[in-house]
């Protein structure tokens, strides 16, 4: 095989191109999985016809359908902000993928402050949601955007705190470093603490994705689709569907990296090391996505005030206590 020598820039471009393919593909597969998993959990079949085999082409057909829909901007809307909002929601979600290590070297950039970058970037899509809700000139959109922002602020704290505890356990902020520090995945070791941190993180993640049971911002029975009410066609797909799926796959990857040992085997056992890291990563991420899908038909939607109370009065104190326990564990065990 001839040696192919690539410059740093070429490698970087290649990696970014791969990310730009992986994210939409992940969203497509996630969308299909959502249809099928939810259907089977509810004793239905879900889509069976498009594409022939178990309706595999459903999401593809959906995407094409939306591609041909008219792009409508309401007369009273703030046109520029309205058209820019989907991009402001999407770009941060894509940027999250840049630091998730899918294998030892299969990562766009192993940042020194990887985990911190993740938290900072994922907080940015809130601005896009507020832009979408306000510029639509629609009261339901505005209510949805405000609910969304309040929820994201409330649930970002548990996520940040549990991620901080993970950084304490690993002794580094680099995501590759965090994975390398997990001879046993953090969810198993330290016993109890790791599992509790994982549960806090997953709860926060589901709320950040604004999925059931935390889907007040887009509660269709009261405020249509919240901030995305006035969006049509591709803008709707990008700002709502794609963003939710992209978020879900990203959070699957982040949870895998932080708690499930990323690209490393579940337990440090020699034969398991033979399986390539990317397979481990993909399998664990799929498991996480399945968990997210499973939560949706399982729980009823919580009310807005219950939702805020749960974050501020339960989840945040719990995660603070967990930081304390983690500190004690790191110091004395």
């Amino acid at each position, binding site marked *: 095989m001839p040696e192919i020598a690539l410059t740093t820039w070429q490698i970087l471009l290649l990696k970014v191109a791969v990310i730009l393919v992986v994210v939409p593909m992940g969203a497509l597969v996630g969308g299909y999985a959502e249809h099928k998993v939810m259907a089977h959990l509810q004793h239905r079949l879900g889509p069976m016809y498009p594409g022939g085999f178990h309706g595999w082409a459903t999401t593809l057909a959906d995407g094409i359908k939306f591609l041909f829909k008219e792009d409508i901007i309401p007369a009273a809307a703030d046109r520029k902000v309205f058209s820019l909002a989907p991009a402001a929601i999407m770009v941060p979600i894509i940027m999250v993928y840049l630091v998730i290590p899918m294998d030892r070297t299969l990562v766009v950039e192993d940042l020194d402050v990887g985990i*911190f970058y993740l938290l900072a970037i994922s907080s940015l899509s809130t601005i896009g949601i*507020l832009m979408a809700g306000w510029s639509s000139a629609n009261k339901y959109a505005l209510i949805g955007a405000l609910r969304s922002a309040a929820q994201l602020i409330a649930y970002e704290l548990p996520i940040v705190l549990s991620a901080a505890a993970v950084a304490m356990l690993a002794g580094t902020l680099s995501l590759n470093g965090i994975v390398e520090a997990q001879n046993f995945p953090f969810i198993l070791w330290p016993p109890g603490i790791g599992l509790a941190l994982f549960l806090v993180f997953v709860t926060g993640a589901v709320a950040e994705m604004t999925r059931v049971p935390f889907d007040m911002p887009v509660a269709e029975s009261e405020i249509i689709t919240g901030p995305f009410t006035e969006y049509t066609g591709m803008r709707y797909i990008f700002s709502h569907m794609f963003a939710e799926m992209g978020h879900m796959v990203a959070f699957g990857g982040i949870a895998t990296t932080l708690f499930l040992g990323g690209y490393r085997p579940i337990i440090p056992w020699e034969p398991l090391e033979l399986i390539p890291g990317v397979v481990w990563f993909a399998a664990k991420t799929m498991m996480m996505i399945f968990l997210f899908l499973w939560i949706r038909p399982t729980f009823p939607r919580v009310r807005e005030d219950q939702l805020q109370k749960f974050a501020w009065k339960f989840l945040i104190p719990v995660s603070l206590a967990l930081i304390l326990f983690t500190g004690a564990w790191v110091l004395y065990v």
Partner: protein
Amino acid sequence: MSAETWQQVVFWIFALLITGAGVLVVTTRNVIHAALWLVGALMGAAAMYVLLFAEFVAWVQVLVYVGAIVVLMLFGLMLTRAPIGSAEFDNNQRPLAALCAAAVFVVTSVILIGAFEGQEINFARTAGTSTESIGTAIFSSYVWPFEVVSILLLAALVGAVVIARRD
């Protein structure tokens, strides 16, 4: 082009972006647009930190200023009085605001020039990890100011809750 020339080019691009966004923050007649332009200015500042190898500071800037403060500003504006849609929303205190801004500019410039005049940033020196050194500095030599700031913020938090309570 050498690495340092590239740094200069990128610096000027972001400098222009920050200045442009900053001017638009104060000249736009719509208060929501002003907050959105502020996002641009703050992100540009974060890019400047990255350019100076201060990655940690850059992402703190993004997380705290863009992800939290601007979001809270937008949230507050939308919740209280910003008209929905593209209507204008402004007041007639521009001369006073311009005066304040000029005063702040002069004071900050005098302080910064007095403190750092003639010093040059050595880019080669700052390469590599700085997060660890920031952490060590905060929790060893600067632990006292750090704790004082924590108490201050806690007091502000409690005060806000007390003021906001109705009963």
